[in-house]
Every structure is written in C-alpha cells, then in structure tokens.
C-alpha cells in the first residue's frame, strides 16, 4: 500500500506535538532548572551547578523522606502482593459469591487518593479512636496516624486496601490462563493444596509477578494524593537532630519544598534524583523478575 508521507505526518502530529510540549520540553527545562537558583517568581535565573544536589543530602527532612519512601515502598510491595495473591486464590476457588467478592475488592481502586485519604483520616482519627475508647482497646485510643511509629504502616494499610483488588485481578487473569489439566494432574498426583500453589501455580504466573511488582513499586514510590489527604506529612518527629515530619514521602517533600518554601530549583533537583532512583529501582526489579521467569 502506498502511503503519503505528509498524511502520516499529519496523523501522528497531534500526539507527538502534545507529547513534546507536555513531557519532553518540560523534562528538559526541569533538568536545566535543577542546576539554577530558580525560585518561581524572580524572572532572573542564575546557573549554580550541582549546589542543589549536594545540599539536599544534608537536609534531614529530605534524607528522612527518602528513607521513609524506600521503607513505605518495601512494605507495600510485600503487603499488597501477599494480600492480593491470597485474595486471587480465594476468588478463583469454588466460592459461591466469587463475582461479588471480586467486584468488592476491586472497587476501592476506582476511588481517587484524595477522597480515600480523607475517608481514612476520618476512620483513623474518629472511628477507630472512638471504638478504642468505647471498647477499651489500648493501642487504638491514640490515632495510628498521629504516632510516628505507626503512621507509615497505617498509610501502607490504606494503600493495600486501595490497591490489592486491582493487583488481585491481574493474578486472577494469570491464574485463569493456566490450563485446568495442569492443576488437575498435580492434584491426582496427591500433592496438597499448598504444595500445588508453590510448585505449580506460582511458577506459571511468574510473568504476572513481574507486572504486579513493577506496578506496586512505582505506585508506592510516587505516592502523593493519599499522603496529602491522609496525613499531610504529620506527625512530627526528631531525625538527625532536627524536628521533621514523619510521614512526608518524597513526592510530598518535593511539592512542599517548591510551594511552601519557594525553593523551586531545589525541589526540581530533588525531583531529578527521585526520577533517577525510580528508574534504577524499577529497571533492576524488572531485570531480576525476568531472569526468575526464565528459570521458572
């Protein structure tokens, strides 16, 4: 078929143009800004080299946010995947209302992080505290998001609640693509339920793990909406000798550095570091998983 070059160009132009204007150009500008003293208001911008990059690692809040984000991501990757894998096994079993269950577990994922964050703030600060007081349950009497030791866990809990149903559906799709004969054969061989899951089912859904781990990893790492609406960074704690916010993840630290403190260039430098770390982590994860897939 003969194709006309100008028509081809016209066809791809809208997307390519928007893509350039919205992602590529700002990405380039962003890298440049991270090397300047841009403050968002002053039109004069001076080049300062790597000053913004070296400065951030001496800032307790940033170092903490960095570590907290890694911790939060690690917790989520494990928690979300364990919960959703168990859920997927349950809802692919011969349960009566399994379609209802699937839908129910999936629904939280449709609601935005802002709305969910407020709902759960209400649950943690009002409902659970209220219940703790009425039933005399000690650890509930203080809000879990007001305690620096529990706040990251509480956030992970909400994230799991929101995200597990979605990940579950990916496992369900993978499990459903396994021929029944394979599992049948194994059960005839007398292998018990857990052995069958471990030896037969898990290797067969290995490529689903690559996807789900990637999704949970990047999703947790980039968390902002939920963080903002649920805790807005609080409570306070001491770190490297300074008072900082105990649940401020990286994305929020970037935003706050820029907006609350007018330090746009520093925020941009943090964002560049954030980008590099995210790419390194996700590429490493996909690489390891792909190798595992082959071994399996």
């Amino acid at each position, binding site marked *: 078929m003969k194709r006309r070059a100008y028509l081809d160009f*016209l066809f791809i132009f809208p997307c390519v143009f928007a893509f350039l204007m919205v992602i590529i150009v700002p990405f380039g500008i962003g890298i440049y800004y991270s090397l300047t003293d841009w403050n968002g208001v002053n039109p004069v911008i001076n080049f300062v080299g790597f000053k913004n990059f070296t400065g951030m690692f001496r800032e307790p809040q940033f170092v903490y946010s960095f570590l907290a984000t890694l911790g939060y991501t690690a917790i989520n990757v494990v928690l979300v995947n364990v919960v959703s894998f168990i859920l997927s096994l349950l809802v692919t079993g011969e349960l009566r209302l399994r379609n209802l269950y699937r839908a129910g577990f999936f629904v939280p994922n449709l609601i935005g992080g802002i709305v969910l964050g407020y709902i759960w703030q209400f649950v943690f600060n009002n409902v659970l505290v209220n219940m703790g007081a009425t039933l005399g349950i000690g650890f509930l009497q203080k809000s879990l998001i007001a305690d620096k030791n529990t706040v990251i866990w509480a956030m992970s809990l909400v994230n799991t609640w929101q995200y597990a149903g979605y990940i579950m559906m990916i496992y369900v799709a993978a499990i459903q693509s396994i021929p029944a004969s394979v599992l049948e054969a194994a059960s005839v061989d007398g292998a018990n339920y857990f052995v069958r899951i471990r030896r037969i089912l898990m290797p067969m859904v290995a490529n689903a793990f690559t996807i789900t781990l990637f999704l949970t990893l990047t999703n947790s790492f980039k968390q902002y909406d939920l963080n903002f609406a649920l805790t807005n960074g609080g409570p306070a704690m001491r770190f490297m000798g300074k008072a900082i916010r105990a649940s401020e993840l990286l994305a929020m630290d970037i935003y706050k550095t820029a907006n609350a403190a007018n330090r746009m260039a520093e925020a941009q430098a943090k964002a560049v570091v954030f980008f590099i770390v995210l790419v390194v982590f996700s590429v490493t994860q996909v690489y390891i998983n792909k190798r595992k897939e082959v071994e399996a």
Partner: protein
Amino acid sequence: MRKLLSLVLAAAFLVGLTAVPAMAEDVEVKVFQLKVEINEAITAFAKRYSEATDGVTVTVETLGGGADYGGALKAKMASDSMPDIFMIEGIGGYELWKDYLADMSDADWVKDTDLYYAPEGKVVGFPIGIEGFGLGYNAEILEKAGIDPATLTTLSATKAAFEKLDGMKDELGLDSVVSVGTSVSGGLWWVTSQHVFNAFYAGYLDYNDSSVHDNALKGELDKERLTAFANYLKMLYDYSNPDILVNGNYDAQIAAFAQGKTAFITQGNWIDPSMKQLGATFKMGFVSHNFLEQESTGLYIAPPSYFVVNAKSSPEKQKAAIDFLNHMALTEDGHKYMVEEAGMVPAFKSVKLLPPGDFSKALVEANARGGNYNWYFGQNPDGFNQNTLGPIFELLATDGDVEAFVNDVTAAFQSIAK
C-alpha cells in the same frame, strides 16, 4: 483528505469552544481574599456597593477553608488572572509581591488610621481590621472555681489557677484545663508556632519594640527568655487534652471550649462567630500569655492582613479598587459591614460601633487600655512557621523535652539567619 481536515478542525473546535470567554462591560474589580469567616459579609457588602455604584462591579472570591493562599495567588499570577484587590499578611508577602503593590499613600482612608502598612514609606496595605489573641477564658467556670481573671497577670498566678482547676475537673465538668492544638497534620500548627510563640517575640516589650524578633532573625535568641517561654508552653500542653493537642483540628479545639469542657483556649477574637454558632452563652475574655513573673495584661493586637491593590491592573480598575476601600473605611455602610456583619474590630478611628462578640469587645477594651503587643510571626520567611517551627512545636507535645525545644528553635533561626 477534505474529510480528514474537517475532522481535525472539528476536534480543534471542540477544544477551542471550551475556552472560558472573558466578558467585561462594567469596570470589574475582583477581590480575592482568604478569610472564610467574613466571606458572606464581604460578598454581600460588595454586592450592595456594586448596585449603588454605576459602572463598577465588585466581585469577591474566597479561598475555601483557608488553604494555601500564597500558592493560589501564584497560580493566579501564572495564569494571568490576578485579582485587583488581594491580601498580604506582612513582610513575606510584601517581598514576594512588591511589584504588584499599588501606592495608596494619597488615598482618603489613610488619614483615618495609624495601622496602614508602609514598610518602605509608601502606603501599600489597607488594614482589614484588628485582630488579637491571648489566653481566652470562660468567665463562668473561673467564677465557679473562685478565680478572678483580673488576677491572672503573672506566671505563678496562671500556674496556680491551672493547678486549682485541674483539681476541680470533675466538679466543673472539665475534660482538661486548656484547649490547645499543635498538630501539623490536623492543621493547627499556627495556633502554637505562630500565635502562642508571638508572646516570645513581643511579650513584655513596647508595642513597636521589635528587638527580640530582630535578634531572632539574626540567629541570636535569649536562651533564658526562650526557656521560660518553653516551660510556659509545656505547661499549656500538660494541662490540655492530648486528643486535641496532637490529634485534633480547629473544630475540635474550639468545640471543647464552647461546650464548657475547658476553662481556657489559645485562640483569638476570630472565634467569636463560632462561639455564637456553637451556642456558647457564657462570658469570655482574655488574659495575657504570662511566661514570666513580670506583671502583664497586654494582648497581641495587630491587623492580621492587609488589602492591597494590584498595581498591574488597569488604572481604571485601580481607581475603582481604591474607591471601594475608601467606601469600606469611611462610610456608615462600610462600618456596618466591618463591625456588625464581618464581626471585626476595625482599625479606623471614625468607627463608633462596638463589635458583638465577647472576645472582640475584650480587644476594644484592651486597645483603649494600652500596653499591648505587636505581631511579628508574619515577618518570618515564607513557610518557616509551618514547615520548620511547626514540627518543633508538635514535638514538644510528644516528648516534652524543653531543652531540645530550645535548641531546635535556636538552630532553626540560625539556619535562616544570613
């Protein structure tokens, strides 16, 4: 080919159609303000003014919930929808918006007040009112406990009152002695890290004596004074309800006081309307934040923010904006709006009306009595009070470590001193 072009155009048209059309017949003066509590009053006032004034329409937009006003303003600047009248709270906003502030030195309203804002000689800010705070009390509860608020003029007197009330909690139906919140995530950081801390900057000094705050900005803090303040703050914390202190929000803080569950509250006269709404009928007043043994009855009084006129608006709009402010300051209708409808304590001398709320009345009395203290927290760098001091103040509530608090605050000021 033609079909394709028309489709592309149609799609472009679809997008283009949705652009917001800007229409203007009258001179439209846009006011963008951050005080949710006066939203209804000022909107009604602007409507009355627009109806009475030919060729001018004043519209008011209020940022809901007192969220990030500075950020919203920056977004407006970025999108070329800057308002004609907006608010700044002090030097931080002044520095940021310098180029946008019209000179109002010759405006009529300036002659009727001493509280205009003119950091570099020319008048740029119209005081929206006077606000003040201190340690608010419930007169009924104090009376039942046999405490005369007029005697609470020193640290030891306040301390004794706290101890006495704490011992009578069951009798008086109190949850705790004082209602105070400091949570960063609950949005109450400003109660302590701005207002209560202002006692450290200004307490026991002349109204215009900014030496303590000036030194703080240079990184020099008087350790003894700061420790005394920290001990006072810790006392407030110790006698408060921990649920509200580290967990609560504004509603919880004022509700506890309005329901008579606490005898004191660390708030200002802006809670008058809420007190009325929550059905609080008891008498209320303020005592000073006494963190030293020296006698003091002073309250912390200043215009919390100023209306400024956008110097980049068209000359007609600027003139219409200043006319509107003159009307607010100098006419009976304006006074009615400020005092009766918005419940503010006006900064203008020609105003004869008395505000309805108890706390506001207390301010008027204190103003007449003299010996009050200025506000300095608005002069700290943008974001410093919330992001740097906020967590330090919250931390004192969890670990109670006064020495660490003093060191943290000192280090925080040293980090911005240059």
